[in-house]
């Protein structure tokens, strides 16, 4: 006997007891008429509760609120229900809502884990990427199948189909009571709980097959041809009487009479009711009476229940509400019911997001057009590809907006998504959140409240006319800094700079209190950088500066040219010094000096675009046709001229930073390339050497100092002797090596060159150290081994260049 039947017997038994007690009491004892039956006054409330419980059972557990049945039950003297049976009597509508929430939550957990934790992924049945672990994949597909079943109100081919799927997930097999409540009916006779797994695909195939095919039609015919036996269960059940059998397949059940079902299955929205539905027989096969509930409209947009106040007399006079049939969503009239926002499907979210994007694009285009209208007649204008005349400074952005619009119209997918995001980042719309990106490409199942912060610099959304760096693009807005910043201030939220004041206060310092390695990021760095819009950030920043601050651009050009000239002169001078040192050096040092000059000669050749050669007969270096010493003089003069031009450019710029005033192009190194130098892809050798330097730093604390020194020396040698590294690559590597070594020194708390413990270094060697590594001392000493080298002939250094 199932739980429901047992409960019905218990209820009836208690009703009988109450009636008997009244009969025994006779005229004695206060009497009350409850539902037309005289009962003892003390039993009146209990009697009414029992009747109401019967009604709820007859209505397939349809009840007011979530726990009306259990509340009524608590007013009776029936034995308490076991916990696992209580779920049977909860409002099935609520239970189904909860079940669906549980499924979706678990699916989200799996997707989130795959997004950030899993290296190997595989596509699930619904197209999302999950962990490639077969168990997790199976679980996710089972959950997906369960969600499909839940969306069609647990209409399944076989009774235990959903049970089997749930058993394969972390949710586990449901209790019998819960399962019966979800299904809306007890297990048919002969149905056995499955021990073998149900294929998740079969659910989809069943659904697909249900789209207007013969299977459903057969079911309908089978059901409608069966005789309906109303009200076969007498109110008072004799114990000897055979208990009611659950409806057999040839009897009308909850699936019967669904002539519109095939279409509903195809277009099933979660808990969406059909327009019209014939009255369904209940669990007992009785025909329920007219409902006092409202059938909601089919459209989710109109899913607003009409409320009418609950009337107490309804429950006494009328029968129980109609059993909710498959596909029908019945919300009882209840003034306390809180409306639930309809959950949008993936497609609806995508459409809404696209519309939102298009609206933003159009809004910004209108803004740009209005800016031109307000700007007056003397402003520079340009005609866009769609025939609009706008200010020249907004042209690039406007064209980007047009392209974005076209992409949205054509359809956003994973192929053009990056282009769309890059274009978006160049406009005032800025970066897009990862969640919205996923919505637009349709790669998530349900979306929570979208992250409102799309643009990390979103602050004051002023129209970027005169000061575009204030709030425009991905460059964070900068504001005047307070004198004593609070310790809990976030460095990413600094206030704007006032560009009218050339002097800017320095940003506050924040102490680093902890550091930890995070190897996980190596596998996800590209994703994070894409998410930050690294490609778009630089493009936007460059666009902003070059378009709107031409003076700065010119200054940077002049500075770069001056820097280059200065470097040429500097390198040439270094080579001359090395040559002069050569004759003063021992054999090993001579080798090192010549190696250094060879390397510098390569750099010089790259910078000047002329060959730099060493004549082994005359031992003279030449730059093109000039001797090195002559070249030094001319290059020095060129550098001076370029520096003067750069200084003029700096002075002309009205909008500058303090750092720039002091250091020229941001003070970022002697060979600062930045915007103007070509950012060509670096060579494999460069990347390999860079990795070696990174490894040196990573292993600093594990290896003794001697090994670190040796490793640094080897790397330095490789950099010097390499023929494939470009000038820029070589310089970058030296800088990185220098930084790495200084950090390792700090880690080991011991300097490599300890003047107290080692011999004082010769002046000549010190100069050599200074010249080889960008003006800073060599961090490692020249050992005795290095001094044993092949002797090299040379002439008197005072007369000619050496070697």
């Amino acid at each position, binding site marked *: 006997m199932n739980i429901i039947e047992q409960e019905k017997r218990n209820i009836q038994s208690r009703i009988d007891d109450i009636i008997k007690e009244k009969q025994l009491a006779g005229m004695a004892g206060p009497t009350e008429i409850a539902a037309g039956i005289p009962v003892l006054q003390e039993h009146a409330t209990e009697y009414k509760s029992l009747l109401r419980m019967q009604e709820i059972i007859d209505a397939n557990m349809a009840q007011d609120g979530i726990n009306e049945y259990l509340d009524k039950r608590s007013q009776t003297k029936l034995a308490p229900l076991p916990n696992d049976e209580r779920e049977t009597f909860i409002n099935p509508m609520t239970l189904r809502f909860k079940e669906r929430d549980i499924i979706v939550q678990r699916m989200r957990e799996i997707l989130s884990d795959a997004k950030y934790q899993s290296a190997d992924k595989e596509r699930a049945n619904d197209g999302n990427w999950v962990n490639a672990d077969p168990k997790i994949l199976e679980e996710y597909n089972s959950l997906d199948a369960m969600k499909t079943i839940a969306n069609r109100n647990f209409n399944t081919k076989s009774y235990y189909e959903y049970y089997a799927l749930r058993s394969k997930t972390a949710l586990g097999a449901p209790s019998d009571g819960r399962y019966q409540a979800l299904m809306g009916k007890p297990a048919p006779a002969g149905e056995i709980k499955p021990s073998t797994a149900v294929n998740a695909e079969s659910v989809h195939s069943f659904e697909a097959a249900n789209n207007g095919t013969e299977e459903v039609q057969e079911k309908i015919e089978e059901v409608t041809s069966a005789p309906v036996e109303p009200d076969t269960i007498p109110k008072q059940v004799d114990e000897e009487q055979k208990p009611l059998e659950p409806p057999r397949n040839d009897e009308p059940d909850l699936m019967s009479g669904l002539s519109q079902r095939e279409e509903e299955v195809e277009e099933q929205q979660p808990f969406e009711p059909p327009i019209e539905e014939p009255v369904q027989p209940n669990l007992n096969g009785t025909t329920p009476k007219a409902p006092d509930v409202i059938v909601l409209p089919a459209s989710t947009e109109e899913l607003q229940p009409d409320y009418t106040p609950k009337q107490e007399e309804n429950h006494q006079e009328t029968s129980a509400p109609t059993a909710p049939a498959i596909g029908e969503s019945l919300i009882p009239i209840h003034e306390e019911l809180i409306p639930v926002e309809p959950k949008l499907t993936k497609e609806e979210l995508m459409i809404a997001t696209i519309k939102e994007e298009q609206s933003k694009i159009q809004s910004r285009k209108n803004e740009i057009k209005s800016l031109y209208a307000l700007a007056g007649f003397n402003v520079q204008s340009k005609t866009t590809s769609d025939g609009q005349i706008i200010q020249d400074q907004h042209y690039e952005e406007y064209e980007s907006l047009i392209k974005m619009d076209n992409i949205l119209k054509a359809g956003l997918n994973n192929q053009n998504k990056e282009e769309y995001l890059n274009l978006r980042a160049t406009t005032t719309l800025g970066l897009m959140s990862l969640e919205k990106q996923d919505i637009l490409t349709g790669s998530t199942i349900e979306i929570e409240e979208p992250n409102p912060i799309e643009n990390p610099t979103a602050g004051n959304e002023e129209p970027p006319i005169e000061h575009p760096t204030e709030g425009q693009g991905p460059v964070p807005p900068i504001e005047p800094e307070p004198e004593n910043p609070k310790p809990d201030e976030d460095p990413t939220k600094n206030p704007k700079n006032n560009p009218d004041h050339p002097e800017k206060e320095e940003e506050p310092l924040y102490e680093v209190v902890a550091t930890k390695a995070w190897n996980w*990021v190596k596998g996800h760095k590209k994703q994070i950088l894409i998410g*930050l819009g690294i490609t778009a*950030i630089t493009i936007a920043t460059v666009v902003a500066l070059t378009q709107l601050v031409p003076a700065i651009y010119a200054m940077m050009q002049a500075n770069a040219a001056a820097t280059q000239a200065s470097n040429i002169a500097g390198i040439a001078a270094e080579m001359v010094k090395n040559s002069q040192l050569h004759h003063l050096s021992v054999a090993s040092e001579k080798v090192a000096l010549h190696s250094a000059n060879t390397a510098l000669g390569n750099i010089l050749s790259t910078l000047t675009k002329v060959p730099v050669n060493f004549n082994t007969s005359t031992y003279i270096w030449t730059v093109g046709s000039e001797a090195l010493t002559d070249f030094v003089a001319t290059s020095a003069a060129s550098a001076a001229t370029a520096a003067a031009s750069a200084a003029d450019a700096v002075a002309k710029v009205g909008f500058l930073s303090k750092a720039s005033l002091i250091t020229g192009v*941001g003070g*970022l190194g002697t060979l600062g390339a930045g915007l103007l130098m070509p950012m060509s892809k670096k060579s494999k050798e460069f990347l390999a050497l860079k990795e070696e330097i990174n490894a040196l730093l990573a292993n600093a604390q594990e290896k003794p100092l001697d090994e670190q020194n040796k490793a640094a020396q080897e790397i330095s040698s490789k950099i010097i002797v390499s023929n494939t590294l470009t000038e820029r690559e070589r310089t970058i590597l030296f800088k990185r090596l220098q*930084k790495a070594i200084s950090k390792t020194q*700090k880690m080991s708390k011991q300097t490599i060159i300890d003047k107290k413990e080692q011999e004082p270094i010769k002046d000549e060697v010190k100069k050599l150290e200074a010249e080889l590594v960008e003006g800073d001392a060599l961090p490692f000493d020249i050992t005795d081994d290095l001094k044993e080298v092949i002797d090299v002939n040379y002439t008197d250094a005072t007369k000619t260049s050496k070697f």
Partner: protein
Amino acid sequence: MREDTVITINNGKKYLLLLESEDTTESYFLAVLLDEKEEPTNNYAVLEEVEKEGKTFIRRVSDPIILNQLLADYKSQYNDLYGDQAA
């Protein structure tokens, strides 16, 4: 401080250091702010490493010229790392 590490600063915020500038003598890191679950957010910052009195500090870079140059540096590194995979 170096790439692929998480730093915690004295106000409790955590940053993941993604890239270190190559073309500079000072260390400038492209960093992303982490949330409570230590997952990357959409907020980034360019942080300058400053050594002072034996301690390590960071300072946010806001100078547009420096920022522009650094971001070009980072873009270059990004292309070096993922240029072949971007297609």
